[in-house]
């Protein structure tokens, strides 16, 4: 195979841009699964929900999709807090989170997907924005703005989260609750409230990720399923609970997927992330930077 260096370089750059976006989608799981030990496989459903809300407001009111996602952040936060409350009351409190908690989130994933099909149908949906279409040409590289802008927003979101978790009291309380719930209780902080806030944040981030998703690619309800494997693969590969680790893993996955897609064809792309996941689970479950 005669590898064109141009093609290779562009594939890698596209992979990095994609990886940045993947990091934003995974940030929520890093919190809910990595730190709170909640296997929220419905997370991609919330992302897709964010995509559709961004789509709906964008099409009808012409507001920029990223702006829409920021406006609905409080609503998504509230939704996340509500879901956690139900999860806690029904499962965590009774110590049944393994079987029934998983079934619960799977049910949510399914209900969200089917509801979206019923409301919006199975056609692909797009959004309109000034930066979808043009590309930046830099040193022989082609940087489509519809990928560059989401990547930058994603990195900004990711950076904000990392600062929050390491610098604020609330953020550090969340890290603490993931490591030692009893110690947190002794510090007179309510672990349940901390977890609820954290879960709310994880879902709120999903809203932003959803807007970014529909900028990068057209969306239809079952797209979420492709992302389940990706986000857990990145989370596990990066090491549970490590946001920087997730970022590195996200870039890695993005590049490998992009290379596979360019040189072997896009129909193999879904298998890449899931294959990564299986290999990581089989050989290095602690991830690259695991605790």
């Amino acid at each position, binding site marked *: 195979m005669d590898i064109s260096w141009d093609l290779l370089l562009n594939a890698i750059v596209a992979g990095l841009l994609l990886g940045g976006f993947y990091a934003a989608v995974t940030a929520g799981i890093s919190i809910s*699964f990595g730190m709170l030990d909640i*296997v929220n*496989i419905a997370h991609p459903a919330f992302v897709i929900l964010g995509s559709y809300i961004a789509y709906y407001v964008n099409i009808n009111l012409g507001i920029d999709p990223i702006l829409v996602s920021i406006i609905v952040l409080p609503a998504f936060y509230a939704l996340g807090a509500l879901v956690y409350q*139900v999860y806690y009351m*029904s499962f965590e409190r*009774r110590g*049944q989170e*393994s*079987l*029934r908690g*998983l*079934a*619960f989130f*799977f*049910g*949510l994933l*399914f*209900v969200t997907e*089917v*509801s979206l*099909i*019923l409301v919006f149908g199975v056609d692909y949906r797009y959004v309109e924005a000034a930066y979808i279409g043009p590309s930046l040409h830099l040193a022989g590289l082609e940087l489509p703005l519809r990928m560059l802008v989401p990547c930058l927003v994603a990195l900004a979101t990711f950076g904000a989260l990392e600062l929050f978790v390491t610098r604020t009291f609330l953020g550090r309380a969340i890290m603490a609750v993931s490591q030692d719930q009893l110690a947190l209780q002794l510090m007179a902080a309510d672990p349940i409230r901390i977890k609820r806030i954290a879960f709310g944040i994880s879902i709120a981030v999903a809203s932003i990720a959803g807007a970014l998703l529909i900028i990068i690619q057209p969306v239809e309800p*079952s797209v979420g*399923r*492709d992302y*389940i*494997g990706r986000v*857990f*693969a990145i989370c*596990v590969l990066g090491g549970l609970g490590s946001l920087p680790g997730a970022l590195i893993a996200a870039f890695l996955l993005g590049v490998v997927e992009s290379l596979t897609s360019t040189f072997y064809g896009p*129909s*193999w792309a*879904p*298998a890449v992330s*899931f*294959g990564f*996941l*299986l290999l990581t*689970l*089989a050989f290095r*479950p602690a991830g690259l930077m695991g605790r």
Partner: protein
Amino acid sequence: MNTATFSIITAAVGLAVMALFHWLSVDYAYFAGYTILQFIVLATAWNILGGYCGYVNFGTAAFFAIGAYSSVFWYKFHPLPIPLLIVLGAVVSGIVGLGTGYLTLRLRGAFFSIATLAMAVVFQTLVVNWDFVGGSRGAYIIHPENFELAGLEVHYIEYLFALMLLLAVIALATARTIERSRLGYGFATIRDDELAAEACGVPTLRLKLIATTLSGAFMGMAGAPFPYYIGYLQPQSAFALDYAVNSIAMPMIGGTTTWVGPLVGSILLGSAQQYATVTISSAVNLLIVGLMLVAFVIIAPNGLIGLVKESLRARRRS
């Protein structure tokens, strides 16, 4: 009641059902009945790993599709009788179950579940890219109009129905036997407290591998006749998500601790879905299944059988 007696009774019930359907002689009844019997097998299979051991498998569709595509594979080489295909499907799916288990069962239950999701997508991608079995274009399976055996001639669908009925009987008898055996006790300890189980001498990894292999094998068995039932097999229909949801919802709604739960759940939910698909739409029907799953998991964690047991116990105390 020992296993032999139970098997005889179930087989007798099965024969009665067969006779009834034969007397009705309505092809649609066979088609609908086949779907429900298929769900009985899938739900019972899922429950062996999910309900008894507490490990949630999201990849039912993958094991089912492996059975289906194994049949397509042999069909392209040289058509084989369906009972043999069922055995082959069971073997392949069982091996895949064993492999998946071996890779992931030493980790926590949550990782196993995520791995099953991953596996489903990986297999779907492999199949979509494998032209020999039709890839994304799909594969046609032509079967004779009628099935002939020793002078008896019936519509092909009746033959498939009978096979699936037999599989359902075998699955239920197997589940019940496991429940009452040493293996069943071992499974229950894995569900309750794996660490304590190990301390009591239970070889947890080995038992979990047995469960995944059995579970996968039965799902493959259910999938093997599917191409003959449907005539045209596409990856979308073989790997459809509603297999995953239903094989989880049916045992959870019926009750996960006994073999009766998946049976009850399959018949109720399966019939309701047949009705809803015909009268409303298949999307609404799936929405209802999903909502019921969420509702039952929150409100009635032990399913319908659990509710019945609770009310009996309450009545006994008062």
